[in-house]
């Protein structure tokens, strides 16, 4: 309750990309990321192709560039790590403005930066054009075992419920003067984690009762069986095909 309606990762639009069946987009992103990850780092032109393809897709999907950039902040920790590599890499064999750098380190930095940003952008685009329940549905249609998709969808459904419960417990603790500053004050945090665990376990039992009440017999029913058309598959696979061709060319010409 009181969670608001902010779909922080979804951009409500009606583009062609939004309307593609989720399973085609999920597979497309997986293949695209695989192709970029396998591309040799020395083929700088290949990464330019990937970047241009993604930029084009951002425009097609009517996702604001600013949105993509702000979401990319999620990879910032990796970026910071990568930026150190030229300074700590083996063998300082080049120098820039008087600072000794390792060329191996520079290549590693470039490799991590390029692949992390391309991969993250692809998944940001997937999430921006596909609502979370549909992504789970997409994995289901790609023959991911129902047990896995059921766990994922329950997690998505109850994450906000449980984090709301945690927030209320913290408010209740603060309201009674709990203001932890030292490790010796950590005890209530530990016991509230325990309480949350027990409450979630009991909720799980009630949810299971509710499922039984509606005829659950141990397998999640197939609710939506529409599958993607050949044209939709073809449209969605343009991106990974292009990426695959680029990666192979990069290998061959190296």
């Amino acid at each position: 309750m009181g969670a608001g309606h902010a779909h922080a990762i979804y951009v409500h639009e009606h583009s062609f990309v939004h309307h593609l069946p989720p399973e085609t987009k999920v597979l497309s992103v997986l293949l695209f990321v695989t192709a970029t990850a396998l591309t040799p780092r020395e083929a700088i032109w290949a990464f330019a192709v990937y970047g241009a393809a993604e930029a084009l897709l951002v425009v097609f999907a009517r996702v604001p560039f600013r949105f993509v950039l702000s979401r990319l902040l999620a990879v910032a920790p990796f970026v910071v790590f990568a930026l150190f590599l030229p300074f700590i890499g083996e063998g300082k064999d080049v120098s820039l403005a008087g600072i000794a750098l390792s060329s191996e380190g520079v290549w590693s930095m470039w490799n991590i930066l390029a692949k992390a940003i391309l991969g993250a952008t692809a998944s940001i685009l997937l999430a921006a054009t596909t609502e979370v329940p549909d992504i789970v549905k997409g994995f289901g249609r790609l023959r991911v075992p129902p047990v896995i998709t059921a766990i994922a969808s329950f997690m998505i459904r109850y994450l906000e419920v449980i984090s709301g419960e945690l927030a209320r417990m913290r408010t209740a603790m603060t309201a009674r003067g709990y203001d932890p500053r030292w490790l010796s004050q950590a005890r209530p945090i530990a016991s509230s984690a325990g309480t949350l665990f027990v409450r979630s376990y009991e909720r799980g039992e009630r949810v299971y009762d509710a499922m039984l009440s509606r005829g659950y017999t141990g397998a999640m029913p197939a609710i939506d069986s529409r599958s993607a058309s050949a044209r939709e598959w073809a449209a969605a696979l343009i991106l990974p095909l292009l990426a695959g061709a680029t990666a192979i060319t990069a290998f061959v010409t190296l």
Partner: protein
Amino acid sequence: MSSALSTTDLHYSYPDGQAALSGVSFSISSGERLALLGPNGAGKTTLALHLNGIKRGDRGLVQVGDLKLDDRTVGEIRRRIGLVFQNPDDQLFMPTVSQDVAFGPANLGMTGGHLDGVVRGALAAVGAEELRRRVPHHLSGGERRRVALATVLAMEPSVLVLDEPTSGLDPAGRRELIGVLETLPMAQLVITHDLPFAHELCERTLIMDGGRIVADGKTAEILGDEALLKMHRLEMPYRV
């Protein structure tokens, strides 16, 4: 009228040995609306969980229409008894509203266009067609309650069992719920602490206390009996 649901001498004890139901017998006719009142801990929710075989009594009988509850009939009885849980967050467990409403009928083997029609019909019955694509977590309290009701209506039950349906609702949400329940033709057993709600909706009332049915009669008479209400920790907010 024929009996839609009845229990005979139902007994149940919690695993720790504490008795929760001590010989519950009652019957509800088809199309009848029956209120079940009683203090906290009287065994009302436990009774509700026995009606569709989620819990099994140590002794006694549950009969739904022509079927006696046993291992063989429990599937059909769960379809016929539509149990609406107290907390919609326990009832609505699927990622979207329409998937949640489809869960029950899909378990019964419905698919495709037929399933789609049943889902639309159930949502229309509670005035929630426009919520189809929504995520349960983002619904208001009143919307959640109506959607929870739709998930059960989709199974076309002959008896609705509602556990404290008005708790946590604002007056308008409560009014909308009354409006919906009044239009539904099936028998309804309404567990509630909201006595004016019981008075408005149900002709007949049961009071349960200490695992037993202690009163069974016309709602107006029972709610007018101040001494009886007080004895069982109940109170009308105004005079009937």
